[in-house]
Structure formats: C-alpha cells, structure tokens
C-alpha cells in the first residue's frame, strides 16, 4: 500500500507535467479559420432549413473548403514505414511487473491516404495490441472496430508508434480466439476533423479531402499460439 500523498504534491506533479509545452505559432489565426468554417456551416444549415432543398444544395457547396483559409496540405513523404518486431506490454496499464514483449503477428503497409482499408486478424489473447505508424506527421487515423464496447477511435498519427490496447470491458467477452474485421482510414493532416466529427461519417470527410500519397502501416501484436 502506498502512502497517501498531499495536495501540495499533486500541484507539483501537475506543474511538472506541463513544463515545456510544444510551440504552436499562429494558433489564433488557425482558430479563427476554424471558427469561420463553423460559421459557414451554420449559415449553410440555416439557409437549407429556410429555403428548402434547392438552397440546401447551395449550402452544401458553400460548406466545401474554399481553399482560402485552409492550411497548406502536408507534403507526402514516400518512405517506407517499418513497424517494430516487438512491443512491450504497456507499463502504465498495470503490467508493471510483467516485463513482456508481444511479437508482431500481422502487418500491412499502404501507400495512399484517404482510402479505407479492411484489416482482418484473429485475436490470440486478451492482450492484443495494435500499432500504427504514418510517414506524414499529424495525419488523422480512424479505426472503426467491431467491438461493441468501443466502436471507433479518432486520433493523430505520425512516424512514431501509436499503440493501443483494449481493456477487457471494451474488448467484450468474445475477443480472444475470434476473427475480427476493422476498417481503418488514414487521412492527411488538413482533413476537416474536429471534436464534432462522427467516425461513422468519416467517408464523407475523406471524400472532401481526397486521396494522396502517404505511406502508413498497421501491425497487430499478440501472443503466438
């Protein structure tokens, strides 16, 4: 049993953890551009509600990016993406005393962003980990799983490991020993994704963004039989 900590220690920990945040110039300009987009969408919805289907079509056209305030698309980096052969069980997940590495049992590499990929694999244990690396920093990654407890994830993806693992509740009781089919999307950094984006409608976001070259790889790590 660890000793209780004081409030002072909590404050110190919070301050220490937030030292040296990454710099982000033009944050205000980017927020204003995103705010303008929100306003344009709202006006388009209002217009469609007010004047019916014809206006709705115009509104949809207005809601499309006009390119004026959109960030410049990231340069595609046509390099190979290599996944590590093994990854450790996450220490922060309570496996502190299980110094164990899981081997790569399956992987796929793709060279375009903006296209859906179906990933089929069989989970061999309840410790299955998936890992995605994207050659273009700050790409968007959407993983639509077949797990009832956790239907979809949206997150950023870059050249480093992006590891994730279900906990037993999220995975569901029929996780191990069963084949799974997931749908993965990797979209360019400028894709219009924000806190209101519905993962189930990511195909529409992808259609607006378009496809472009960009290597990414996904791997499944698990215990071999």
């Amino acid at each position, binding site marked *: 049993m660890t000793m209780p900590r004081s409030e002072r220690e909590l404050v110190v920990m919070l301050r220490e953890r937030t030292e040296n945040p990454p710099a982000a110039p033009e*944050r205000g300009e980017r927020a204003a551009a995103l705010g303008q987009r929100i306003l344009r969408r709202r006006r388009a919805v209002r217009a469609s509600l007010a004047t019916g289907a014809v206006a709705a079509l115009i509104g949809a056209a207005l809601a499309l990016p006009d390119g004026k305030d959109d960030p410049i698309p990231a340069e595609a980096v046509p390099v190979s993406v290599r996944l590590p052969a093994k990854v450790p069980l996450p220490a922060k997940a309570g496996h502190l005393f299980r110094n164990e590495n899981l081997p790569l049992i399956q992987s796929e590499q793709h060279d375009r962003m903006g296209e859906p990929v179906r990933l089929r694999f069989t989970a061999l244990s309840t410790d299955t980990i998936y890992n995605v690396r994207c050659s273009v920093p700050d790409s968007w*990654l959407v993983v639509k799983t077949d797990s009832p407890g956790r239907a979809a994830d*949206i997150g950023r993806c870059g050249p480093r490991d992006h590891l994730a693992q*279900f906990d037993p509740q999220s995975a569901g009781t029929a996780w191990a020993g069963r084949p799974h089919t997931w749908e993965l999307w990797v979209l360019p950094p400028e894709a219009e994704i924000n806190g209101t984006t519905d993962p189930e409608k990511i195909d529409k976001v992808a259609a607006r963004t378009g496809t472009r070259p960009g290597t990414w790889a996904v791997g499944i790590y698990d215990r071999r039989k």
Partner: protein
Amino acid sequence: MADRSGFTGYVEEHSDRLLRLAYLLTQDWARAEDLLQTALAKAWVAWGRVSDDPSPYVYRILTNTHASWWRRRWRGEVPTARLPETARPDPTTAFDDRDAMWTALARLSDRQRAVVVLHYFESLPLAQVARILGCSVSSVRTQLRRALLRLRVDPTLQALKEAR
C-alpha cells in the same frame, strides 16, 4: 458582424496556459492542441458574447469537448482497474510516485479530472469550478473527494506537514 479585435490578443496571452490545461485533460500534447483549437474556434464564434471574460467560457468548452471526445478518441495505453503499487514506501522514488499519480489521474472520470485540474492547476475556487462545469458546489465537492481518494491524496496531510 461581431467585433473580434481582442481575440488574437487573448489567444497570445492565454493560449500557452490553456494548452497546459488541455494537456492535463488529455495527457497527450497533439490531442491537447486539437482540443484547444476546437475550444478557441468556438470562442471565436461566440466572441461577441464572451469577450468581456472569455476564460470561463473557454474552460467550459475545453472540459465539455474533451468529455464528448473521450469515448471515441485514441486512448493509447489503456489503464487497468488497479494502481501499480510498490511493496513498501520508498522515499527515493519521488518521480515514480508522481508517475503513479499521473497514471491515476488518467483513470479518473472526465468530470473528476476536470475538477482536479481546474481547482489545483488553475487554482479556481470550487464555486467557480461549479459554474464552469454547470453543476452545484456540493457536486464538485463530491467529485473532488472521490478524485483525491483515487489519487491517494489526503488533504489533511499538508496541514499536518506544515504543523510539524
């Protein structure tokens, strides 16, 4: 047309601090930046209404947006239900202890984490935390008590240490 002339100045003055707050909610700098961008964009839209005192509004958007993202956002490593414990207290492992506290912070509910961060990092009184989160002060107290319990923080300890 709303007057948004003060928006850029507000962002320049406060965004580093707001990013830190977002990081404490998300524990991921990239996600924190996304969360902050979303909150600032919404603040930009509402600037005509909130420009007199935008921070409470931005705090509310940060905490609400993070709560709505949480279920479908990339979580990275998924914590288990128990804290990593050492067999006995080790005074030489302060950093390990803070690591454990950081891990425990990730396991709090969104509301509990928001209460902890707003109160202990932003130093906001509980009444103001309650206004930001749209709940009663007693509810905030309850959330804070539960959070401290899970973080193994004993509020009486500091007073005892200072009395020594």
